[in-house]
């Protein structure tokens, strides 16, 4: 899992049926200083996140399928939380 920031949206009409009715967001991975690392994922959103939100991303297929309640799905990255605050040592990233 990693912490990221939602930076965009993806719209697709033709897609695998596992994606039907799912919102897709582009999420930048953040480092411990809160800066983008350059890596990103197109994620399925299950927590009603929006552009600008700092989020928790699961990038693993088995957990993704469990959340989406499917035995088979070509989905890896899922936004599973909206982050309020991060503490590293006595350093708070609000």
């Amino acid at each position, binding site marked *: 899992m990693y912490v990221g920031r939602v*930076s*965009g949206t993806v719209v697709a009409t*033709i897609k695998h049926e596992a994606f039907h009715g799912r919102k897709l967001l582009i999420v930048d991975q953040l480092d411990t200083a809160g800066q983008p690392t350059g890596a*990103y*994922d197109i*994620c399925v959103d299950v927590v009603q996140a929006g552009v600008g939100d700092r989020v928790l991303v699961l990038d693993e297929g088995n957990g993704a399928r469990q959340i989406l309640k499917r035995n088979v799905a070509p989905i890896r990255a899922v936004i599973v939380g909206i982050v309020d605050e991060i503490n590293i040592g006595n350093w708070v990233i609000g």
Partner: protein
Amino acid sequence: MQLARVIGTVVATTKYEGLQGIKFLIVQPLSKQQQPQGEPVVAADATAQAGPDELVFIVGSREAAQALPNTFVPVDQAIVGIVDEADVIE
């Protein structure tokens, strides 16, 4: 799951069982600004509708095979959607 651009096709007559009838395309992975990022890869087209120059999104590793009708096949990248619009801030 990443953005990618279709840049070519692959034709292979002799394939491992289960791969018959699957279209293989060469795709260039892209950054979120749609600039080339990394080396092109061969991806199975799970939409069966992607064509040259199209903006698509791909899934990698074990989940790629799960996009196909037979999910127990040796595939590690698959095209799972054709992108109409990708809006990015900044």
